[in-house]
């Protein structure tokens, strides 16, 4: 039996507390018969129902993944249109441009296949035994000029990756931009590696989640305005 350790938490940004807005980030950690699903989503702050959009992202990835799996799909690209349709249904009766949200997901199948997907800001870090890498290096002109599930131009906006890790160790870390964009650029991998290390030392999910919560809650105040969400995953 392989070890699978997951730690996750979400902390409301100082500006939301001040403005009495809800936490507009959402996350999902779901163990399915055919694998483990991780999702983080950042509701776009300028949208009236951003939290509706980000919650819908989490539910939609989960529903779409189950249909995708029932049809024995191996191609992650076939999940994406399904996910968008599910999201459009889920947010009804709200309009798309009131519910903008990013979508970052990781699915680890019981066979050891890893499927990663990212639309919009935030980061997915991974290590399959060859060192820490990031799925998408930010190449935008300025911060927060993000594409969301509401305003996708084409499916090319998605960054997708499939890796057959088989029995190799798998480490993943998904985070919204409240975390990724406020980390010092050349220390981001070291941050993620320390999270993985400390998570692996914890005995159970409560201790792991408490650790993530403490890290997110003690963020430098000048960079704590945005909501912050992080999921750390390790299988070995």
């Amino acid at each position, binding site marked *: 039996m392989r070890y699978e350790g997951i730690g996750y938490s979400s902390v409301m940004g100082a500006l939301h507390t001040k403005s009495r*807005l809800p936490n507009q980030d959402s996350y999902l950690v779901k163990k399915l018969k055919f694998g483990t699903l991780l999702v983080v989503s950042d509701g776009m*702050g300028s949208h009236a129902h951003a939290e509706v959009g980000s919650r819908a992202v989490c539910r939609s990835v989960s529903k779409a993944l189950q249909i995708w799996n029932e049809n024995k799909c191996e191609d992650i690209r076939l999940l994406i249109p399904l996910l968008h349709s599910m999201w459009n249904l889920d947010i009804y009766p709200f309009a798309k441009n009131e519910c903008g949200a990013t979508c970052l997901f990781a699915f680890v199948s019981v066979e050891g296949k890893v499927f990663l997907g990212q639309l919009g800001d935030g980061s997915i870090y991974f290590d399959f035994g060859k060192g820490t890498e990031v799925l998408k290096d930010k190449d935008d002109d*300025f911060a*927060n000029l993000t594409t969301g599930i509401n305003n996708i131009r084409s499916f090319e906006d998605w960054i997708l990756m499939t890796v057959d890790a088989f029995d190799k160790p798998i480490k993943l870390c998904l985070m919204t931009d409240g975390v990724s964009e406020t980390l010092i650029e050349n*220390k981001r991998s070291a941050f993620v590696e320390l999270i993985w290390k400390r998570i692996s030392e914890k005995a159970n999910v409560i201790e792991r989640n408490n*650790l993530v919560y403490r890290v997110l809650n003690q*963020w430098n105040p000048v960079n704590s305005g945005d909501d912050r969400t992080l999921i750390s995953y390790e299988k070995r």
Partner: protein
Amino acid sequence: MENANEFDGFVMPEARMLPVILLLDVSGSMSYDAKMDELNSSVREMLDSFRKEQIVQADICVSIITFGSEVNVHTELTPARDINYTDMVAGGMTYMGRALDVAYDMIEDKTKIPKNAYRPVVVLVSDGAPNDDHWENKLNKFTSTGRSSKCDRWSLAIGADADTGMLKKFLDHPEKEVCYVEDAADIHKFFRFISSCTVQRSQSKNPNQVAQDLFTADILNINFDGLR
């Protein structure tokens, strides 16, 4: 084993930059009708308002580029709280095209404005028309290529000699209008509006977002209490 403060060194010690770039006409005509005095006091007032804001999400940094017969970077991009403002002096022609080139290069330079900065505010103020060569090409380059094309751009025309057509082309959204002031005494109202919009952005969840209702705001008669 876990150390209580071991995660402290990973987060940026400063908030992300929200740049404000002022492109200000200091040609000879600005010396008449107290226009230069009003412009100087308006910029001072803007800097004061930025200094008072608590930094949570964005750190407002200001650069001032002046254009007369010469183009000068009067103030390099600096946190507003650290700027020791010295008055601008009017004189010479209106070499606006060159000023746009200087601003273009500043915005493109990722060592000055990193990619994690928020979308800059760029403000163009003039009481005349550009009279350097190829200014049209420089304006077109500024508004349609590179990072400057994605900036939040506003313009102010002072008096009837200002080239409002050119200033309109500078704006980044079709619904925005050039703010026109006949009387130099109204210059501060425009700057107060820009200050309020910028502060509002710096304190919002998404500091890139400019509320669209501000595009059509009656800038000279706006209720600033409502805006904040």
